[in-house]
């Protein structure tokens, strides 16, 4: 919008000094100077869908629950985005198709930037595909959404648990006595099974690699856990002391083994003495058989005699 605005300003400054600034929320369509005029209405329509999607996302941002609440807006937005990308029969004044005008970046393209942000930063980052499968049929404008199996199961279990809680709080969930500890412990006891089932299902999916929930489910569950654990104090204390004995036994065993092992090695080992030689002391005195090898004179008889009696023992040598 800034671009067209500045263009207008420029035009205004150059040719129409008396023109007054137009309302910038509604760019004009019939400006003969604007070559892209014929495409303007499509951009405006896209803006409406985008802003609806943005509004929905922002509305559902604490906690983030875009997937389950904004899928309608998202489908509409994607649908119209698709249409703007296929405006092959509508032309601007210079005979380019409007799709080209909108998406072939001139300097910047806000519309496509915003579209990308909505798609990647909001929809994909929330892992919405894990919860909602959308069967895209954009050419016929018949895209259909479907909640995934695991989301539905999760929802059912969540409702069971909530029903249970509602029953035991006599219908009023938001009354003060919810925070009452006594009432809380009652809920804890009565709805424990439902909670365990809900949590068990969630945890199973959560810890399975490559299978996810979307952010909606995760935040719902986190809030549920928060409510259950911290507000109503239903959490079972994971008592570390229960494992204390086992850990202590293991600890003692391992320490004992280590100590014994090294002590035993120390007492047993270390007996090896090595034959250490200082070469500088060897210089003058070749010993034994070696001295025989040094000189070229060797008796054949002696040679055979020794070869027969002696094993092949490597003797003192250096190289």
């Amino acid at each position, binding site marked *: 919008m800034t671009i067209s605005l500045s263009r207008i300003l420029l035009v205004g400054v150059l040719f129409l000094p008396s023109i007054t600034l137009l309302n910038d929320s509604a760019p004009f369509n019939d400006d003969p100077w604007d070559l892209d005029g014929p495409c303007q209405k499509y951009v405006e329509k896209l803006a409406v869908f985008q802003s609806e999607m943005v509004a929905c996302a922002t509305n559902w941002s604490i906690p983030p629950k875009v997937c389950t609440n904004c899928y309608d807006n998202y489908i509409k937005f994607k649908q119209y985005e698709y249409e703007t990308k296929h405006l092959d029969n509508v032309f601007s004044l210079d005979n380019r198709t409007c799709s080209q005008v909108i998406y072939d970046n001139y300097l910047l393209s806000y519309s496509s930037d915003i579209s990308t942000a909505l798609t990647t930063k909001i929809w994909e980052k929330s892992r919405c595909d894990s919860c909602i499968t959308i069967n895209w049929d954009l050419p016929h404008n018949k895209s259909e959404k479907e909640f995934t199996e695991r989301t539905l199961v999760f929802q059912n279990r969540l409702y069971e648990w909530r029903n249970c809680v509602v029953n035991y709080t006599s219908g009023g969930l938001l009354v003060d006595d919810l925070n009452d500890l006594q009432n809380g412990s009652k809920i804890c006891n009565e709805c424990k099974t439902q909670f365990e089932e809900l949590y068990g299902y969630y945890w199973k999916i959560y810890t399975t690699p490559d299978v996810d929930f979307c952010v909606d489910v995760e935040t719902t569950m*986190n809030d549920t856990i928060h409510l259950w654990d911290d507000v109503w104090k239903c959490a079972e204390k994971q008592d570390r002391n229960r494992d204390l004995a086992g850990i202590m036994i293991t600890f003692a065993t391992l320490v004992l083994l280590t100590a014994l092992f090294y002590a035993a090695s120390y007492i047993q080992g270390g007996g090896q003495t090595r034959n250490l030689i200082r070469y500088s002391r060897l210089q003058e005195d070749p010993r034994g058989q070696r001295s025989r090898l040094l000189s070229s004179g*060797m008796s054949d008889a002696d040679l055979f005699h020794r070869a027969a009696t002696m094993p092949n023992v490597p003797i003192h040598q250096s190289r």
Partner: protein
Amino acid sequence: MTSRGRVRTSSNSLDPNEDPVSGLERVFSNSNLEQVARQRRRQEEQLLFSRQLAESDRTDSHEALSARYESLNYEVSENRLYRDAEKKPSHQLTLWRISRNRWFVCFLIGVFTGLVAAFIDIMVHYSKDVKFSWILKYLISKCSEEQRGTTAGCMWTVMIAWIGYNCVLVTIAAVLVIFVAPIAGGSGIPQIKCYLNGIAIPEVRSALNHFISIVVKVVRLKTLVSKAIGVACSVGGGLCAGKEGPMIHSGAAVGAGVSQGKSYSLGIDFGLFKEFRNDRERRDFVSAGAAAGVAAAFGAPIGGVLFSLEEGASFWNQNLTWRMFFSAMISSFTVNLILSWFNGKSGWLSWTGLANFGVFENKDYNIWEIPLFLLIGVIGGCLGALFNYLNTRLTEFRKKYVSSKFGRLFECLLVAAISGFLAFLTIFAIDDCQPIGANPTATSTQINQMWCKKGEYSAVASLFFQNPEESVKSLFHSPINSFGVTTLIIFGIEYFFLTLWTFGISVPSGVFIPAILTGAAWGRLFGIFVERLFPSVTGIDPGKYALAGAAAQLGGVVRMTISLTAIIMEATKDITFGLPIMLVLMVTKWVGDMFNEGLYDSHIDLAEVPILGWNPPKMSRNILADRVMRKDVVALERRERVSRIVEILRSTLHHGFPVVDRIEESPYESLPDYGRLKGYILRSQLFKLLENRIFEEEESSSAVLPNDFYECQDDDDQMKSLADLGLTQYDESCWLDIEPYMHPHPHRVPLNTSLPFIFRLFRGLGLRYLFVVNDDNHLRGVITRKDVARFRERRRNHEYHVDELYISES
């Protein structure tokens, strides 16, 4: 002392100094009196020596060099055959083929290294799946069902299952190392370092090369397979171990293997690449393999090349660097290809390395942060030095006391059990439960619900129960509040000591990732403190301090410089932090070197390897060749009787012998008086000559010698015993003319050469022998690697001294 007993028997027999056949002129001129005098003198000296030996030489000092290490053979024996080879018309074609094959082999090295690395990674991945989805998830949920309404604890059964699983995997790794391929233990980088320095590590090479040829291949494949499976098991088994060092070793083993053109898995000799079957070519391929290994492990090809340059190569050339880079690129490309396929994105080549540290989103740092980075460097240097000191002591203890096979196996199990247990203990002790959703980066696979209320997860557990690489990533990139101060302190300390304990047990395990993880923990802690000190400065990201801490800790332990900088920069895919990382590593190395040397060097010293460092020892200018050399040289004359050669081959293990024009008895000394140095010949060449019966008497001197006789390597024939040659008594009485086959111009120095000069010759040329001659070119002694390496500089009371190390023979 068997040799003493042997001395007596031999001196009781016929006079050993006289040989009526070869020394005809001399023998008859010798008087009996002289002989008796010489004999008596020798006996007296032996007595004296054995007393000396008994008095002083049996010490327990660990400062010794082991006699079992041999040098690699880089020199071409330029004998007549070698020169003639160039005259053949096919030689031009051979030259062309060699340079083509070098590239081809480098390509293969890259591919196979990548395959091995991807294999290890996939194994670790599956092991993680089993552990997390089965043991943790299943058992914990089962537990929480059972626990309902009871008071009995159940979590510790999960713990037992977890520890049990770890122990099983670690047992596999340890058994592979202890009973199958001992060389596969540890990180493998010290071994590669030694190999590239020009030393044949017995287990590497003897296992690889010195056995009979068929065994060789199996053993080498064994090393590679044991290493690959073992490291997958030890990392999967939850040890504080990285898979990066072993990957580098695997890369080097691939390099050594592929270049030889034999299929080790099938025991087939393809007959390919025969021209590369020598130490000189193999060294180049090993360094290419090591570079490829780094490239595969960290996705850091440049870091890999620099690693080979820094850690290994004493010998360098431009073409080799370029080929290494090619190998490294191919290997990271292969890893990417396989992993992208494995993760369902076939053909996506921009996959990050196995140990990528993630990309930093906030890359800002200011000039005022530089002093803080320097401080991190100081801390890293001190911690690294402490680590090395403690680990060296521990390794000494292990070497001395924990030497039995079952002892070592049991130690591995202990470490595995306690590593697993400590994780549980920490989670048990620190109540760090946070509601699910507190850390948006934590994915559901990292969630561990242990001992937490429903809907909460344990933040500590996510550090302990992830793969180490993922923990590094979360320490680098998580928001500032994700880890509490206590958590970081306890985790850092535990990991430091566990790594300390783990490095050196008999499983394949690297120290890279554990050190990085420890450093990232205390670096993040440092970042949190900085953030509290300067609350007014916004935008302090503890992640970058975690990165600096990781670099400092790793640099303090391994003391690598440029290659580490490049590796970390490549693993974070960013050069922005180049300056701080470099500064940190520089300070770290300075500080650390004030206390001790790097971990790999300490381990090399403990293994008593005669490695030659970058520089000759200081204060050694006045140590001259006649003090360095050994005078008792076993030399040959140009024409030798076969029986003497057989005797020499049988009773020594020398790998080459100088050839002189004559050897005479000296009337003054017990050592003979050697004539002019004419050349030298390799043991393996003598072997080949004997095997093919190239004797003078027979008319078979036209017998066919192998084409590459001048390249004759120790490989195949070394362990073939002399008996296999089937020499008859008649053969032994023949004469052998060595002259055409010897290397006619070996390196030699005069008697007054200084040690630094000799050192540089050895280091620069990769020598195996250096002969010492007097002014008339008479042979006076021989210098080998151990003779040079036994002089070590020491710093005491701020002064340098040169010490002489013992040589240990076991």
